[in-house]
């Protein structure tokens, strides 16, 4: 699976307004909602579900990235939003360091394999220092989209 298969490029935020974890999650879910990816009236429910999941175990995997996610019946296909924060956000990450890049993923219920394939793609790239650095440096939605599409085309990026 490629980024372009599940990232909603209308829902990428080069500078999150939020300064805390729950705010960042709300901002990204709302952004997917505005892009009409979540169906009517589900935005608040999904925000709560993602935060609940995040409280069970942080998805801040270290190295400045977090991948909050939830499975929810509101979506039929996997959809993701990307948000960046130059100040850094406390996600209670495994390495206790602030998070600068957030990839928020909403997966449909009943299709665990698809969810794993999206995660595989995300971590294939996020574990590379160069990719993390390039992502953090993006300043416009277009730059984020270009980077993700380039990563899709050129796996060695």
């Amino acid at each position: 699976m490629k980024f372009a298969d599940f990232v909603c490029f209308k829902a990428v935020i080069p500078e999150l307004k939020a300064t805390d974890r729950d705010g960042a999650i709300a901002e990204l879910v709302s952004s997917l909602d505005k892009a009409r990816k979540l169906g009517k009236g589900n935005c608040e429910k999904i925000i709560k579900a993602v935060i609940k999941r995040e409280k069970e175990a942080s998805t801040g995997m270290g190295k400045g990235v977090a991948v909050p996610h939830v499975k929810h019946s509101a979506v039929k296909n996997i959809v993701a939003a990307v948000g960046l924060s130059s100040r850094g956000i406390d996600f209670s990450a495994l390495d206790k360091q602030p998070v600068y890049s957030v990839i928020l993923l909403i997966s449909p219920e009943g299709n665990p394999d698809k969810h794993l394939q999206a995660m595989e793609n995300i971590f294939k790239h996020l574990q590379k220092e160069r990719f993390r650095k390039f992502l953090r440096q993006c300043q416009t939605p277009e730059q984020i989209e270009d980077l993700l599409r380039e990563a899709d085309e050129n796996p060695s990026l």
Partner: protein
Amino acid sequence: MQKVVCETEVDIKNADGLHMRPAMQFVDVASQFDCDITVSNNENTVDGKSIMQISMLAATCGTRLRIKAEGPDAQEALDALRELVEDKHFDEPTPKEKKKQ
């Protein structure tokens, strides 16, 4: 010190596969041991103590993984990981158990 290298294969049995929470459990158990641990599917070989790398395997239910451990406590590590993956299946339901729910 004698160099110990052990290898084993395990099957993923929980319905949701090796998603983030099981991946974290795996890394937690692996990190309790001094030996080096690598995990392979058909395509990739990754560090068994790195959460990002283990998540990257995207091992679905039914996937067979090859675990290799190198170091004095290699056999203990493999026993503990086998217990987690195959006996406890990450404290999650298998596809059969999930249907009953």
